[in-house]
């Protein structure tokens, strides 16, 4: 029973934090928005070079064969910078599904390949314009389609760093990979949305703290006022009690049982709530500044809002927790329970 991260995990996370921190700066956000773009090919090439895109692909399929905890740390770092590129969707959700269904597929050997994924629950697909392939849900099957067979209709997300499209496609023009584990994909999506939420939430608090130390009102820094302190302390408390859930969810998602599903859903709900709470607290602490386009906090809020609607609503995820709570024993000896093997 050990919650600590390995040296390798910390190293990967450090690499992500450094890469994202250096390239995905507020100034870079501004440049991207100014040019109405949500994809930086240079950064994507660097990401591919680090191996992040291959982490969840088994070694047998040409990947690194790492686990969801490892990738969750990358997703958390991506959340901290509101990364525009589809790293989480492609490498965190689509690639491992493709590896399960078609381990010999050439895309898995190309670390720069972007695989878009479209579960039936999502009305739009992010970054569909740069995808090299599409994994599409229909009747429980996964279909693989090439970009030339997909009709893209741009839609507008509230998140200016998220470029979304409605898609039209013809199953006859796509490759039927057979029944796919969309529940497993939803689990991974939930865990990595939670991880991104943790990054978003902490960034919002950090931005607000920096501002509150600096900004003076009535002759002292606004951070010395109890109301400001309590807003931010409450947000930080929400973070502290979502992060271990996210880590535990990442560590257990591979179980693929009702316990793991409930934990993934739990992590997703509380992490995105923490992100929303932190972003709103940060906007409030910034005062009128927080409501201006030029202050970055709104980007965090909008990303959290976008993530909340994808891959199942909060009600869908709450129902998965209820299913675990009401059909399996609960209590202090059940914290780390697994479904007993039926073999």
């Amino acid at each position, binding site marked *: 029973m050990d919650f600590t991260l390995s040296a390798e995990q910390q190293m990967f996370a450090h690499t992500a934090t450094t890469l994202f921190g250096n390239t995905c700066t507020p100034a870079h956000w501004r440049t991207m928005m100014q040019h109405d773009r949500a994809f930086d090919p240079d950064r994507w090439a660097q990401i591919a070079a680090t191996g992040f895109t291959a982490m969840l692909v088994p070694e047998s399929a040409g990947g690194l064969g790492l686990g969801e905890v490892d990738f969750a740390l990358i997703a958390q770092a991506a959340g901290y910078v509101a990364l525009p590129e589809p790293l989480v969707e492609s490498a965190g959700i689509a690639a491992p599904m493709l590896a399960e269904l078609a381990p010999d597929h050439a895309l898995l050997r190309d670390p720069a390949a972007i695989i878009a994924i479209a579960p039936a*629950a*999502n*009305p*739009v697909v992010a970054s569909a314009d740069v995808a090299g392939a599409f994994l599409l849900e229909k009747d429980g099957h996964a279909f693989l389609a090439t970009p030339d067979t997909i009709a893209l209709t741009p*839609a*507008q*997300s*509230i*998140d200016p760093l*998220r470029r*979304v499209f409605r898609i039209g496609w013809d199953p006859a023009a796509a490759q039927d990979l057979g029944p796919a584990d969309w529940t497993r994909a939803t689990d991974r999506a939930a865990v990595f949305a939670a991880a991104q939420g943790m990054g978003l939430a902490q960034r919002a608090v950090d931005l607000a703290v920096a501002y509150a130390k600096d900004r*003076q*009102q*009535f002759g002292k820094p606004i951070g010395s*006022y109890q*109301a*400001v302190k309590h807003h931010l302390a409450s947000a930080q408390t929400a973070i502290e009690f979502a992060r271990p859930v996210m880590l535990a969810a990442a560590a257990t998602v591979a179980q693929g049982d009702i316990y793991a599903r409930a934990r993934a859903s739990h992590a997703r709900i509380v992490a995105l709530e923490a992100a929303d709470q932190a972003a*709103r607290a940060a*906007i*409030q602490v910034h*005062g*009128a500044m*927080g*409501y*201006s*386009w*030029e202050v970055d906090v*709104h980007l965090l*809020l*909008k990303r959290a*809002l*976008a993530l*909340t*609607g*994808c891959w199942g*609503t*909060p*009600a869908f995820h*709450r129902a998965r927790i209820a299913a675990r709570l009401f059909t399996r024993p609960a209590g202090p000896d059940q914290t780390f329970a697994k479904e007993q093997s039926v073999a």
Partner: protein
Amino acid sequence: MDLSYTPKQQAFRAEVRHWLEAHVPADPLEHYDASRAGFEAHRAWEATLKSGDWGMVTWPKDYGGRGLDLIEWLIFEEEYYRAGAPGRVNQNGIFLLGPTLMEFGTPAQKQRFLPPMASGEEIWAQAWSEPQAGSDLAGVRATAVRDGDDYVLSGHKIWSSRAVFADWAFGLFREPGSERHKGMSLIFFKLDAPGVTRTPIRKINGHVGFAEIVLEDVRVPAFNRLGDEGQGWHICMATAGFERGLMLRSPARYQVAAASLAGMWQARRNSADPLLEADVVRAFMNAEAYALNIYQTASRLSAGAKIGAEASTNKIFWSEMDIHLHQTALAILGADAELVPEPGTLRRGDHDWLDDYIFALAGPIYAGSNEIQRNIIAERMLGLPR
């Protein structure tokens, strides 16, 4: 207590409804903060309103109004929101400065400023905040130096709503050397006057709703000072009362939104979280409670009372209600919540829940942050020490 409308009030409602049905544009105007075109379309709508004598029905006839009472004002607003009529681009004028002018202005000032305000010929921005004085209005540094019959204004204002496209602004300026609450005067200036530089600030929905204003030796006549020299703080507190109080946020606005929310819930309940019904009902309760509170206040004011610190409870209530209502709407929309409506798809009476949610987030911040309002309630209503 008698909670029924008089026949005269019912007739008035019918008159308003009839006129609005004939005049409200079928398609929503572009937002007045989105572009010059949107702004001018709203100015044109104000002129249309004035053509029916609806510019500001509570003002005396001499100043472009109809001399009606607060209950009739509420009825007018109810019908206005019910009709889905355009937002009032001149709200800083008609709802904030107008009532203050009515109380503190000279007859000549009223005659000069109120009628073009009621007709939208002159559209007003507020210029309260400064970079170093947001919540702390007494920290204002901009100065007004008296020079004969003029003032020469200098300083730096920020977060001035409407100031990008408006004609006039009002703000606090202090006598050089004065401190805190003393020595400040409320002065009007034209936004295209020599020495005024406006820089747009975008809101988080991308609209240029605010401006930063730099004033360099801007010369205005002393006639543009409201009230006595040095009385600015006192007047400003009165204006803040109006802003938080009756006028700025009509109950009708939230009642229309709550009714739309209930309609959306009924249309989507089969695919939405069943537990959201409690929030839909709560949004309705909140909107009704706010309306009843305002009717009660209107009765009190009609009986001669003055609006006091309880205006701060209004500010807190509507701002929190507005966020809750729109959070509920987005939760019902579920996976579609993040998507901005396609341009041109919204018709009169449709709600842009997402944009309204983003707007609602500003509620706890502007017009005096909710933290400041809670201090006011605690200190002035409850008598707790500063």
